[in-house]
């Protein structure tokens, strides 16, 4: 027969182990600060808010490069929005918001390589006639191709983001793990209760 205190000490040991594992898994977010940013045309736009949806107002927002070097600084507005000029040839960048009183949030962002607009579009000012003929000579297929390229450039970072999100979601989360262990503990308790009822008549 297995002694009760042995069972107890074994279960206490396992629970302590699990607690250590999960506590060290991620920093505790007492009051979470969310940052959401995206690149649009030649800007990085974004919004920052607390986990209850309230905007983080008038707080310093910094743009960092891969090595943590500050590229640009700004402040969030009354509604929590902010914007930066798009940095050239830097990707990925990190947007960090310091919400004061120990609140800090960040988000890293992939930026599509900036299109060299000047090379593709002929000089408009020097010879206006050329551009007219050039425009007219563009076939439907050409226009379609250009539009497709532009759209791809804009949506590519979003697609990356979506893939990363999907990958993150497919992993089992702490909620599921703890929930499962909870179910097993409950079942064990139920089995004990049922058995003790039978034993006691």
């Amino acid at each position, binding site marked *: *027969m297995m*002694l009760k205190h042995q069972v107890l000490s074994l279960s206490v040991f396992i629970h302590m182990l699990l607690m250590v594992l999960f506590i060290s898994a991620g920093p505790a977010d007492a009051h979470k600060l969310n940052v959401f940013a995206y690149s649009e045309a030649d800007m990085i736009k974004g919004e920052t808010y607390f986990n209850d949806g309230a905007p983080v107002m008038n707080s310093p927002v910094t743009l960092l490069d891969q090595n943590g070097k500050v590229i640009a600084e700004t402040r969030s507005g009354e509604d929590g929005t902010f914007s930066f000029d798009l940095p050239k040839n830097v990707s990925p960048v990190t947007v960090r918001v310091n919400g004061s009183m120990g609140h800090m949030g960040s988000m890293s962002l992939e930026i599509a390589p900036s299109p060299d607009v000047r090379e593709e579009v002929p000089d408009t000012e020097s010879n206006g006639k050329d551009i007219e003929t050039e425009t007219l000579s563009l076939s439907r297929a050409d226009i379609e191709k250009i539009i497709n390229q532009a759209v791809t450039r804009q949506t590519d970072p979003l697609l990356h983001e979506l893939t990363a999100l999907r990958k993150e979601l497919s992993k089992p989360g702490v909620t599921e*793990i703890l929930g499962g262990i909870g*179910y*097993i503990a409950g079942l*064990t308790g139920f*089995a*004990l209760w049922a058995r003790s009822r039978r034993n006691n008549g």
Partner: protein
Amino acid sequence: MHISEGVLSLPALVTGATIAITGTAVGLRSLSMEAIPKAGIVSSALFVASLIHVNLGVSSMHLILNGLGGMLLGWALFPALLVALLLQAVLFQFGGLVVLGVNVSTMGVSGLLAGMLSRYILRRISSPGIAGFIAGAGGVAGAAILTAIALWGSGEFFLPTAELILATHVPIIIIEGIICSFVCSFPCRTMPGFLEE
């Protein structure tokens, strides 16, 4: 070692379910009042073990701990495994509900046999380290062979499949053997009664 939904043929699924139901029934009957908390703890361990991944080379494998469960619980491994795998299927989408019976059988039968073997060795040479290693390594190796049999029953060639599964699981067989060896030798010293049913 979880077989996915839609891979197996109907006869394999029915056989697996039959073995799993029989094992669970025998296990529940053998489960004494004192063994229930132990079964619960083993069930939690089995449930969480699949999340501990060992990355080696190209493949990523996870612990199973079925041999350890068989050593600690005997036949009661089946209900513990059923609960753990059911929750894994529902919460993590590991395996699936239709193949649950087969997965319980492949890991349960191998775990039970490896556990019995390791208990026998423990009685003969009384070395919990070696007995634990055999429980851990034997459980995974047995599960690999039984998985190959289940796939064979669904139209795959037995030998190449078994060789492939065994070969890719060699690292996890060794790692699980070492882990179970430690797990067994520690409580055998500190709480000598823990292997009694």
